[in-house]
């Protein structure tokens, strides 16, 4: 077991190096340092001298190999440096943005799961009735609408017409909750359908297992069967399918954050790509990859811990 984790952990290193290499290759294939300088300098039409100065002072005149070496060292030591464009320490921005992003992510993901699981239980309980049919039909319907439409629609209808909660903005602490109403609604509307379908399958899979039949045969009440046995066992696939997404919540949701004015990290990467702020791009991509892999790792661990049939080798 320990050996497995050590191996999996060490396996992260080549992947992170691969991700960084790819980021470098993509970025420098497309943009020259000169283009980056033009985009980052405030002057409307910078002179060649200003550009040369910018490139030199940001170190982009060095050969890419050396740049890459320095990049890997600073990434592995989590020393992220400053933004090319605003000169802010990148770590400061990440620290400031991670919390709101995490709050939004946790609430919207949590509520989406809760609604998804709740409806799945209701639907599994009421299977075969019209509620089942209607709910499952709605689930497919809701899955077929792009998130931008949800955002525009919910902001317009619930925010502007019915005035439930602030349209946008953020305050820290408890006051932040009221700013979460609309974005959480959006993510429930756009995401719950997927989980209802998924969890309903898990639940019904369990219901058809032998042990459930045995329990029923023994005269255990249906509600208790559902809660004690089915739900408990169905939680294994529920947990393993969702846990992988959790670490990435820190990096935020692009569309929700920009429409609802939440000061998270969702737009940090996209804005950096648009303004060719490579110092930020490489850090955010690295961090994203790191969290993604951590998520995969946690999933494996949980899978092993929850399901005795799985052995790690």
């Amino acid at each position, binding site marked *: 077991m320990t050996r497995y984790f050590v191996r999996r952990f060490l396996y992260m290193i080549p992947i992170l190096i691969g991700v960084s290499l790819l980021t470098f290759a993509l970025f420098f294939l497309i943009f020259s340092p000169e283009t980056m300088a033009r985009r980052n300098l405030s*002057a409307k*039409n910078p002179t060649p001298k200003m550009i040369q100065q910018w490139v030199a002072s940001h170190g982009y005149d060095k050969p890419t190999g050396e740049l890459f070496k320095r990049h890997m060292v600073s990434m592995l030591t989590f020393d992220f440096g400053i933004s090319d464009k605003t000169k802010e320490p990148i770590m400061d921005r990440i620290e400031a943005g991670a919390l709101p992003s995490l709050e939004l992510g946790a609430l919207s993901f949590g509520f989406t799961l809760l609604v998804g699981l*709740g409806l799945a239980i209701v639907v599994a309980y009421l299977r075969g009735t019209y509620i089942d049919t209607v709910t499952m039909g709605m689930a497919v319907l809701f899955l077929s609408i792009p998130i931008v439409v949800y955002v525009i629609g919910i902001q317009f209808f619930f925010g502007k017409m019915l005035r439930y909660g602030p349209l946008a903005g953020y305050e820290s602490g408890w006051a932040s909750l*009221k700013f979460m109403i609309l974005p959480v609604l959006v993510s429930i509307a756009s995401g719950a359908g997927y989980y209802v379908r998924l969890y309903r399958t898990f639940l019904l899979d369990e219901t058809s297992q032998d042990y459930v039949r045995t329990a029923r045969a023994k005269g255990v009440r249906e509600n208790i069967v559902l809660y004690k046995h089915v739900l408990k066992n169905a939680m294994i696939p529920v947990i393993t399918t969702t846990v992988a997404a959790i670490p990435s919540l820190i990096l935020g949701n692009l569309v929700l954050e920009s429409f*609802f*004015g939440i000061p998270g990290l969702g737009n940090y990467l996209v804005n950096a790509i*648009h303004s060719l702020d490579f110092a930020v791009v490489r850090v955010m991509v690295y961090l994203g990859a790191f969290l993604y892999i951590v998520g995969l790792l946690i999933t494996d661990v949980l899978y092993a811990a929850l399901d005795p049939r799985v052995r790690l080798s």
Partner: protein
Amino acid sequence: MIAPFRFSVLAAIVGSLAVGLVGCGNNPNPPEWNRDQTYFVAYGTEPQSFDPSVSYNAGDATIMDLVYPSYFRYNFLWQNPWKLDLDVGLTQPKREPFSGNGPDGKPFKGEKWTFEIRHDLRFQNDACFPGGKGRGVTANDMVYAFKRMADSKVEFPLASNLADKVIGWDEYAKGFGKKKNDAQDRVNYDKTLSGVQVDPANPYRFSVAFNQPYPQFQYIMAMHFTTPIPREAVEKYGDLFALHHLVGCGLFRLEEYTPRKRIVLVRNENSPGALYPTVAPPNAEPRLLVDVGKNLPFLNRVEYRIITEPITNYNLFDQGYFDSLGVGQANAPVLLHSIRPGTSMKQRGIEMLKGAYPSVEYLAFNMEDPTFGGYTPQKRKLRQAISLAIDSESYVEIMNQGLGVKTEFLLPRGLCGYDPNYKNPYREYDPKLTKAKQLLAEAGYPNGVDSKGERLTLYYDNYTDNGPSDRLREEFIRKQIQALGITVGSRDTTYAEFVDKTNHKKVQFFNYGWIADYPDAENFCFLLYGPQESPGPNNANYHNPDYDKLFEQMRSMDDGPAREAIIHKMRDMAVEDCPWIYLQENEAPTVYQPWVHNRHSNPILSNLLSYRAIEVDKRLALQNSWNQPVLVPLVVAIILIIIATVPAVQTVNRQRNRRVRRPAGGPH
């Protein structure tokens, strides 16, 4: 029945929580400040830099000009023409001839400007000063600002305007190390920049010497680059001086900047204040003259909420949670559209005001393009034909909802050389396109088809990452040009790539705008000056030696009939060559809530908030009456869902209970 019961308890808890949250109200602004002279306004982009020597965009200037005052400021009440007042300055500058020999030994005939700043200015309190108390401002701080501009690591955007003119600039700039080396730079800041020096007899007086006449320098002295900068702050805060630790002597100081959340300015205790303008233009509205001569500012605090989504900002303004809303925070045509007679905003007393700023919007051909560029009569006629096909009036009306003024040439109203009676022969739109079609045929493309039977295609180089309006503009232009029979191809990119393409002259036809740094004809005519070709500002790559010669002549002249005559000659050349299709002079709309005082749009000023005031009680009352939540649909929806679920639950329970009652004979 346990399960449905538990579930309904859970639903009730979640439901009452939701209702409770809805009951908190929908005001995103902190309530304690809502009852104060605090101005709430949207900040539509992420700030780039608040370093007075670096910052160079209209959005950030609104902060800069409140924190960092310059020698002059534009008069709040004057527009087309604009007027300069003293701000940090105490006296009008003295200009005198100044001659000598340049570094290459050649004699020059330049001029020297002498300035004197106010004696009562103090910097804001900040930890970089001894004891945390702001010290008095002297001319040394002005000279330090100039030295920073010369430092090539500071990324001063107008370096090319000053470097070849200020005496000793290059020599001084050489002293800075190429790489980051703070110690060496610090020593260099102790040396003198020979052209910019403090008067030894008067610590508030300094002079700037040029190797040529430079009449536009007065406008540079009205930009935030020439604000007193405390050297202590720059050296203490380093890179953070740019965004998080602003230290100035303006009416306000920065209290908080939280990225993507908010920027808060509060009144600067150490500022002696400034006066509401006392000299008003004859046509000034009486309501703007109530506060004449009073001490500024009226607000205690300004809170900018950073929200980059225009639709969100617009809706927040609509609910009354922003006190005003302008371009850069929301889409200009939308602002105009909503304020038409009969709309909800109009009925609630919200007011829209337009203000012009020195600018021009145009469509440009790349003059080095093999198909559409070039100076032969045929190529000229081709461009003139396309120019005739674009209807500026409906452009202004449809794309901009009547915002903007059709322009015949690149000069806006109120500048030397602008002629209100001039009509550009290639901008007179005729819906039948008779003349345009004739010119197109003469150019060798009758009905848009060349001699080989191939249809002519014009590629419109657009960028579409700034929201939907750029795409709509493209649609409009395509529709107009295709009426000539020319196909308009799409070559959309992101803005970054578009800039790259123009710099490398890889564009064919594109839309561009210019907002002048200062209201002077030179700052417009240089857009077609040959040596400024891409990557310079002349992105049409127009080269006309005669035009260039006249430009060099007019550039250092003071305004007057002689200058005007030269500009007219330049105009006639450029119009005939037709590198540009002049679209419009831009105007910026701003909408104001009814509780805002001194509503006036003069977009050349970035410190407009120094003049504003609000009626707090009126704001509270109206916000409250506009924002009562509508709960009926929510309640109805919940009841409907419950009613719909009950029969199904009952059916299922009946079935299950039956099954449970037969322990031995279950389904198996």
